[in-house]
C-alpha cells in the first residue's frame, strides 16, 4: 500500500467514490454537458486554490483572495463601463491583484508578520475599499466583448475551463519541475534551512503571494464575465473554499508538502458535491449536513498520517 500513500491517492479515491455514487443515483450526472458544467463551476475556486497552494506550500495562508477578487473586478468593470477595452481592463485587474498580493507578501516576508493576520487585515481592508469604490452597488452593462471570457466555449469546452487548465499546467510545471518550485517547497519545509542554503526566501514569499493575488484577479474576471456584473460582495467567503480544496487535496497547512494535482482533485470534490446535491434535489435543510459528512468521509480515505508514529 505504500504506493497508495506515496502518490497520495486518498483524495482521488474520495473523488472517484463520489462520482461513482452520483453516477449511480443520478441519471444526469454522467452527461457530457453536466460534467462540463461541473468543470465550469469549479473553475473559479480552482484558480483561487492553485494560487492558495503556492502560498500554503510556504506554510502561509491567504485569506484575502475573495476580497482581492472583488476589488480587482470592481475596478476592471468600472473601467470597462468607462470605455476602456476589456483586454486593457483585464490586464490592469491582474496587475491590481498582483499589487494586492505583493502587499501581503511584503508584510509577511519583510515585516515578518503572521500570514493569517496580515491577510485577514487586507481581506477586511480590500473589502472595505471595494464597498467604498462601488458604493455597495453592482456594476453592470459591461461590454459584450467581455462576455466570451466567462461564457464562451472553444471546441465545446467553456473558456473558463481552458483558462483553468492552462493555469494549472503552468503552475504544475513551475512547482514540480523548476528550480523556483523546488525553492518554494524548501521554504515551506524549513524557511531557515532554505535561507541558509542560499534561497532568497523573502523574495519568493512576495512572489508567492503575488501569484495568489493575480490568480484571484483572474478568477474575478471570469466570475464577472459569467455574471456580466461585478458585485461588491463577490468572492465573500471564497478563501475558505479555496483553502478547503487545497487541504482536501492533501497539502499540509504546515507547508512544504502537497501537490497541485491534489488541489485540483480537492476543488473537484467540492464542485461535485454541490452539483450532486442539486441534481439529487437534496433538501436545502439537509445540504449542509450531507456536505459536512461527505467532507469527513473524503478525508478519512486519506488517512496519510496514520502511520506517523
Amino acid at each position, binding site marked *: 500500500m505504500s504506493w497508495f500513500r506515496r502518490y497520495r491517492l486518498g483524495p482521488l479515491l474520495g473523488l472517484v467514490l463520489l462520482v461513482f455514487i452520483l453516477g449511480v443515483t*443520478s441519471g*444526469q450526472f454522467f*452527461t457530457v*454537458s*453536466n460534467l462540463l*458544467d461541473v468543470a*465550469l*463551476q469549479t473553475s473559479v475556486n480552482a484558480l483561487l486554490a492553485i494560487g492558495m497552494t503556492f502560498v500554503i506550500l510556504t506554510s502561509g495562508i491567504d485569506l484575502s483572495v475573495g476580497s482581492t477578487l472583488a476589488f480587482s473586478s470592481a475596478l476592471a468593470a468600472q473601467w470597462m463601463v468607462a470605455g476602456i477595452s476589456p483586454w486593457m481592463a483585464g490586464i490592469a485587474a491582474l496587475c491590481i491583484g498582483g499589487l494586492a498580493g505583493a502587499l501581503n507578501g511584503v508584510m509577511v516576508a519583510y515585516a515578518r508578520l503572521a500570514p493569517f493576520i496580515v491577510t485577514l487585515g487586507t481581506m477586511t481592508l480590500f473589502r472595505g475599499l471595494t*464597498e467604498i469604490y462601488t*458604493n*455597495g*452597488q*453592482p456594476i*453592470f452593462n459591461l461590454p459584450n466583448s467581455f462576455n466570451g471570457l466567462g*461564457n464562451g466555449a472553444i471546441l465545446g469546452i467553456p473558456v473558463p475551463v481552458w483558462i483553468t487548465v492552462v493555469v494549472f499546467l503552468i503552475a504544475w510545471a513551475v512547482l514540480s519541475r523548476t528550480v523556483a518550485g523546488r525553492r518554494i517547497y524548501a521554504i515551506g519545509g524549513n524557511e531557515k534551512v532554505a535561507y541558509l542554503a542560499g534561497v532568497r526566501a523573502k523574495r519568493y514569499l512576495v512572489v508567492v503571494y503575488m501569484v495568489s493575488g493575480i490568480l484571484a484577479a483572474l478568477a474575478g474576471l471570469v*466570475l464577472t464575465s*459569467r*455574471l*456580466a*456584473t461585478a*458585485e461588491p*460582495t*463577490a468572492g*465573500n467567503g471564497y478563501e475558505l473554499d479555496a483553502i478547503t480544496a487545497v487541504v482536501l487535496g492533501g497539502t499540509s497547512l504546515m507547508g512544504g508538502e502537497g501537490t497541485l494535482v491534489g488541489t485540483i482533485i480537492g476543488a473537484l470534490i467540492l464542485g461535485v458535491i*454541490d*452539483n450532486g*446535491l*442539486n*441534481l*439529487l*434535489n437534496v*433538501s*436545502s*435543510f439537509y*445540504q449542509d449536513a450531507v456536505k459536512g459528512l461527505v467532507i469527513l468521509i473524503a478525508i478519512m480515505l486519506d488517512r496519510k498520517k496514520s502511520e506517523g508514529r
Partner: protein
Amino acid sequence: GCGTSTTSNVGSATKLNSGTASTKQIRIGFAVSTLNNPFFVAMSNGVQQEAKKLGVQVTVLNGNNDPATQLNQVEDLIQQHVSAIILNPADSQSLSTAVAQANRAHIPVVTLDRSVTKGDVSCFIASNSVEAGKMAADELIKAVGGKGQVVELQGVIGTSAEADREKGFDQEIEKSHGITVVARQTANFDRSQALNVMQNILQAHPNIQGVFAQNDEMALGALKAIQASGKRNIKVVGIDGEKEAVSDVHQGVMYADVAQQPTQEGVLGVEYAVKLAKGEKVPKQVNSPLHLVEKNTAFKGF
C-alpha cells in the same frame, strides 16, 4: 397583522419640512441587517438622503446579518444617546431584546422591512413577505399557463424572508394542480451561487418552465444560467425591484418582479424617526406596498 386602523401607505405619507432649529440636534441611528445586498444598500441610501435633506445626523451600522452584532450595535447607539433608532433587524425574534433596551432608555424605535416580535416599536414600515411570495406564485402560474415544472431558489435558510416567501409561494402554488415544484434549492440570496445552482438544476430538470427566485440577485444569477444553457421560454420571477431586474423585465428577459421600495422605506423611516424625536405622533404601522413589475409596467427599480 396589516390593515389596522393606524396603517397608512408610503405614497400617502406627508413630507416634513426640513431645517427647523431643533432638527439640527437630532441624531438618528440606523442599524441595518446587512449591506451585502443591493436591497439594503438602497434602504440605507434612502435613510442617508432623507437625513441630509432634513439636516439631521445619522449613523449607519452594518450588522453583517448577525443578530448578536446588531444587538451590540443598538447598545452602542443607546450609549450615544441617539434621538431615535431605525432598526432593520437581521431577525425578528432576537432583536426584541435590543428594542427592549431602547425602550428602557426611552429611545423610540422604527423598524424597517422586518419588525420584532416583542418590545415597543413606535412604527413599523415594511412590505409583507408572505404576500410577496403569493404574488410571485400568481405570476409564475400565469407565466407557465398553469401547468408544468417549476423551481424555487431559496434564500438563506433560517431567515424570515426565506421562510415567509416560501410560505406564501407554497400556499398559492398548491392551488394550481398542474404545476409541480420539481426542485427547491438554496442559493443563499447570492447571485453567483444562483448561477451555479440553476445550472445544476437545469441538468437535472431540463424541462422546467418557470423559476421563482426569492430575491432579484438570485433571479439574475438564474437568468445567466438559463441564457448560458441556450434554453428559451423559462420564465423567471423574482422579488425586490432591483434596477437590473426591473430592466430585464421590461426587456422581456425576466417575466416579472415583485418590487419592494427599500429607498422609500428608508426615507420614510427617517421622517418618522425625526417626528418621534420631536415627540410627534406617527402611524404604528406603514404598509410599504409591493409593486408588481411586468413587461409593460412603468416602474424604476432601486
